[in-house]
């Protein structure tokens, strides 16, 4: 029964979001209800199972329901779309070397910096060794991806370089001091 109500709440939240998108409801009214219904759905899934399961169920249920409405509202083609003109192949697109170098630099540097920083910061936390290790291996990729995104979005100025240099070096120094 709880699961059924949880499904209903999630479904209603998505339908309300859809109505809001269509301009059928006032923004503040609908937005509050969407948040309330999603929270209720999460709590009900959590009561029926556990909170971890509840979060995953919500991650599965909401997109599945939303895609049904996306398909419902979609404009489908009445004819094959005109294909682009055929040209000779430009096998090496413009600026590819520059972007490839930036990609490698960003991925490798953000990876090293974040893993070292996460280990260094987690070592300072008042947790048991196992809890700290768990936090390190889960937070590592998350921080890596976040720093990677930040490096790519940030304007390549002095601020970025100083921040990364300080972050990487301080993590390295902290780790060397411990060993």
């Amino acid at each position: 029964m709880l699961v059924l109500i949880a499904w209903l709440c999630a479904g209603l939240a998505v339908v309300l979001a859809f109505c809001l998108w269509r301009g059928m409801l006032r923004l503040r009214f609908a937005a509050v209800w969407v948040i309330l219904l999603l929270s209720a759905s999460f709590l009900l899934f959590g009561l029926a199972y556990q909170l971890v399961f509840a979060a995953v169920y919500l991650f599965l249920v909401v997109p599945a329901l939303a895609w049904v409405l996306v398909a419902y509202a979609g404009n489908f083609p009445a004819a094959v779309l005109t294909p682009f003109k055929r040209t000779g192949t430009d096998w090496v697109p413009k600026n590819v070397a520059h972007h490839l170098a930036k990609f490698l630099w960003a991925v490798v540097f953000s990876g090293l910096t974040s893993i070292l920083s996460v280990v260094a910061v987690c070592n300072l936390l008042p947790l048991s060794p196992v809890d700290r290790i768990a936090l390190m291996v889960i937070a590592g990729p998350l921080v890596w991806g976040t720093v990677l995104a930040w490096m790519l979005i940030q304007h390549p100025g002095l601020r970025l370089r100083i921040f990364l240099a300080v972050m990487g070096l301080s993590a390295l120094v902290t780790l060397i001091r411990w060993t």
Partner: protein
Amino acid sequence: MISTDTVKRAIAGHSWLGLVSGGLMYLICLSGSLLVFSSEIEQWEQPDAPMINPIDFNVAAAETTFNSVLGRGSNLTPHMYLVPPTSDSPRARIASEKESWFLYPNGELGQKERVFWSSMLRELHYFLHLPESWGMLLVSSLGAILVGLIITGLFAHPGILRDAFALRLNKSLQLKETDIHNRLSVWAAPFHLTIAVTGAFFGLALPTLAIIAEAEFAGDQQAVIETVYGVDPQVELNQGAIAVNAILQQMPVLAGDGETFLLTVHEAESEKRFVGVSVQHKDSMIYAENYLFTTAGSFIRTDGWIDGGIGKKVLYSVYRLHFGNFSGYWVKLAYLVLGLSLTVVAASGVNVWLAKRRVEDGLSDLWAGVVWGSPLALTISAGMGFWVDFGLAAVFWLVLCSSCFLALYLCDLVRFKSLARRLNVLGLVGLLAIQVVLFQEDAFRSAALVMNQIIFCLLVGIVLVEASHVRLSKRMA
């Protein structure tokens, strides 16, 4: 409010990040989506293996056979396994780290297990058929890159609310690909983020543990592993045969309603043998709790996963969370659908970049070859897996390369895609036909039936897509 400059840089970063990793991401997502059903695929590869109802499992007979295998010595590896039948996989097996044999209901040793295609698929997903350590590191790095892609993607999409339900497939090729890419990725972003982080965990755990060992345990990696997994129990030497029956009889008392799915003999090659029994608890996300016994059947202790701290629970929950191995078929199906959506996101992301150039060339052909050739390569290698027990990875890459060459040779995207869809349909029909011819009624029971139903649904899906293209072409003509 995000500035226009930030949006521009986010789009550029997102594009190049996606372009460089797109092909590998596509293969990993495609193989990972299928691996959600790994247990069912293994059973589908050999549906004629003896099936045993868990209630009818003759433990005493299995104990005799298991001990005779352990006594032979020739096939021993450090870990030896007795796999009892479960509700998910109603088959009993005796396995070493290299091979596995089925058990008949009377405990006799049956045929050898053949899981060549699922092994190939697993190796593709885990390390892209590269050397294991490097491949796993690369795949895990792609998990972190996926996190980066999700974040840059959200920054690159200022109209995220305005376009929340928009799907404009009828305007232009670029808008069509952009809408497919954005609708699939935005709604499922929390799920994709979960998959990215848990996926990165597997390969990054070891390098991270090495750094932790340097920082906290004076370089002793074994100490880190023992901190997490605990130390092996101290047992008396030379204890004789494994008392499987006595051990399994204690499980209902020790593990309540948990389901026993594996009995492992540790240190099987030495005299310090002990037994671990893995039990899956339905109400917990952790992979399993391990109950340790002496070979004579005396209970020693558990590994403390289910009653341990939050850290232990998190570490041992990652596998089930990543592969959707909990709550039965509906979650597995949802994982398959959302996994395939991520596969489409990877493909459509590159399609958006190609469409932005407003031309069609060899790069477009090559990408279409990868996108449509990969499922075809999986289908053909799966079909060959029923007869060939080696080189399936080579078959996969050969078909994929052939598909790319065919696309380049035809120089006509519409014609190639149509041909590729038809070849995929033919391949899937062939797979179903092989199953029915080789295994007759066995193809219509248990996990084989589930897999064949999924293959049929995929087949219907591709037929519908091709039919709609044919209909639209006719209308245009």
